[in-house]
């Protein structure tokens, strides 16, 4: 008894230490924002060619994963699978936490963050950014209602329709995130109709990976054992999502390679663009795909450790992909005069240079820390632990 009490005491202290650590990261991020406010974006690595940098990599990862993590809930409520249903509340919580973290980063990176409410007030109907303000706030509201319907017995009847609404909403939301880039017709890296579905499929993989990591930590924290059958099944599903998103990325690059006018961009991003091809092949393809697929599908890899490693690799690969996609996509110069060699004082015809500054990175980690705090506190005070009946395949 006393040993278990001592252990509990130790855990409590660890819990508060973790919260304090995350709180410190948030404070550092706010300090970075304050400096950016005072001195301007000059203290970041962003410039007039690379206008979106590290904060956007973090923000978009968090927002896309926030949508994807709801897959777990959807499989439960829309398709009625029991083991997923038991995990729907945790998935909903993670979604809200990551959305909050991602949006905080996005808003605090604005040149005028104090005007963040303007898109809602001066709504421009043709702007996909403006649409997204509705999609993001709607998602918050819907997921909170969905969580309520699952956790409050009297609201249980609404759980199914709310689950279906969340299911539809998050598809539209991730489509909206993909459209931000799909509508940029003038840039070789973007302007493709495949981007929204690509983001949707990627969200499945990233969200599932985050879910795995959090679930495994929660089980370990509570000294509980996840049934190997459940773990195996979810691991395989992650594998399928990884394959699906890899397929979309291959098709995206293949279509670009087919268009003669985008060949030079593909050459840059896949072959001779320095850090970008390196991150693409080593970071995204090898760590983000080959490694987790091997960990998931190679015979004899049935341990919890392999599932954890595979999920972490998918998250790292996701960050690598977004860095290449967002920053590499802007580093390649806009083509104003196709077929001509151009130069100017404003970076025309030159590869844009970008070195992320510590302030941007702090802001990005601040977003992760916000998601961490929301998740940790909620799991501590409310009942988000999945409750499985004995596993029966359904």
């Amino acid at each position: 008894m006393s040993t278990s009490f001592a252990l509990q005491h130790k855990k409590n202290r660890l819990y508060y230490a973790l919260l304090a650590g995350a709180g410190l990261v948030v404070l550092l991020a706010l300090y970075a924002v304050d400096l950016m406010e005072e001195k301007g974006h000059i203290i970041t690595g962003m410039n007039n060619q690379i206008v979106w940098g590290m904060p956007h990599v973090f923000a978009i990862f968090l927002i896309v994963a926030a949508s994807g993590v709801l897959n777990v809930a959807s499989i439960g409520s829309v398709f009625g699978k029991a083991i997923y249903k038991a995990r729907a509340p945790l998935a909903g919580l993670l979604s809200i936490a990551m959305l909050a973290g991602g949006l905080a980063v996005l808003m605090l990176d604005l040149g005028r963050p104090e005007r963040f409410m303007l898109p809602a007030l001066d709504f421009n109907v043709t702007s996909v950014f403006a649409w997204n303000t509705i999609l993001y706030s709607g998602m918050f509201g819907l997921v909170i209602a969905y969580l309520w319907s699952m956790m409050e017995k009297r609201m249980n009847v609404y759980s199914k329709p709310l689950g279906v609404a969340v299911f539809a909403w998050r598809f539209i939301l991730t489509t909206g995130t993909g459209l931000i880039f799909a509508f940029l017709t003038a840039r070789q890296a973007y302007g493709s109709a495949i981007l929204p579905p690509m983001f949707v499929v990627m969200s499945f993989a990233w969200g599932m990976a985050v879910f795995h990591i959090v679930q495994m930590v929660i089980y370990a924290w509570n000294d509980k054992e996840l049934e190997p059958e459940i773990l195996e099944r979810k691991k395989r599903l992650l594998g399928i999502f990884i394959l699906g998103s890899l397929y979309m990325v291959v098709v995206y690059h293949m279509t670009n390679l087919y268009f003669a006018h985008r060949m030079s961009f593909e050459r840059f991003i896949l072959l001779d663009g320095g850090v970008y091809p390196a991150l693409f092949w080593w970071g995204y393809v090898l760590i983000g795909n080959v490694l987790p697929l091997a960990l998931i599908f190679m015979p004899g890899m049935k341990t919890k450790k392999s599932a954890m490693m595979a999920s972490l690799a998918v998250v790292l690969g996701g960050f690598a992909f977004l860095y290449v996609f967002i920053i590499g996509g802007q580093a390649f110069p806009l083509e104003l005069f196709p077929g001509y060699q151009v130069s100017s004082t404003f970076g025309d015809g030159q590869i844009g240079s970008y070195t992320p500054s510590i302030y941007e990175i702090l802001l990005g980690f601040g977003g992760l820390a916000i998601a961490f705090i929301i998740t940790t506190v909620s799991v501590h005070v409310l009942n988000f632990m999945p409750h499985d009946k004995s596993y029966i395949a359904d």
Partner: protein
Amino acid sequence: MKDVQRRNFLKTSVGLAAVTIAPGMLLFKVAHGESDDNSKVRWGMLIDTSGCTNGCRECIDACNKENGLSGGLAPTDSQWIRKIEIKDVSTGHEFGLPMMCQHCAEPPCVDVCPTGASFKRHDGIVLVDKHRCIGCRYCMMACPYKARSFVHEPLHNQNPDVPRGKGTVESCTMCVHRVDEGKQPACAEACPNKSILFGNLHDPNSEIAKKIRAVASTQVRADLNLNTGVRYQGI
């Protein structure tokens, strides 16, 4: 009795509302030009690249001076107008031209701006409302001409006619403050070879309209179908 009181109250309210709103509406009308897209006025430029001599920076210097820009060339400095040196790789032919906001009739920056800070006046000039810009930089991503700059640092000694703001996006205003006074944009006035012809594209008798009818002119990235207000001759 009550009815009369109510009627009087309504009359007074409507009158007061009209008095309050009317000046605003008037200002709105002024700010947005006088007429709609089929207006009699569409400001534009025709740039003769043959007169754009190597090493000449008169238009750039004039722009910087007029609009209070530092003239710095760092990647974080604003450049509303820049000179692009162009070389045809297959023939070796080289030429240069000034590049700035093309004042599109269908501006992508206006489409993507979440707050409507990027807007087009009815006389065709595309501007950024510094009070509504949140600094998201989506317009910079969307502009095919890389015409926009983001203010990365605090500003000092601004020109009162050309308000700018740290954390907001800006670009060539076609010297709207001069145009509204009946003057030419600074770059057009400064060009030693008179290669930048400014005028009303919608007035068939204007010099620019006549010249555009007579000579072959090009829109940069015409494939995007943006109907630019700035046209080039000799490319």
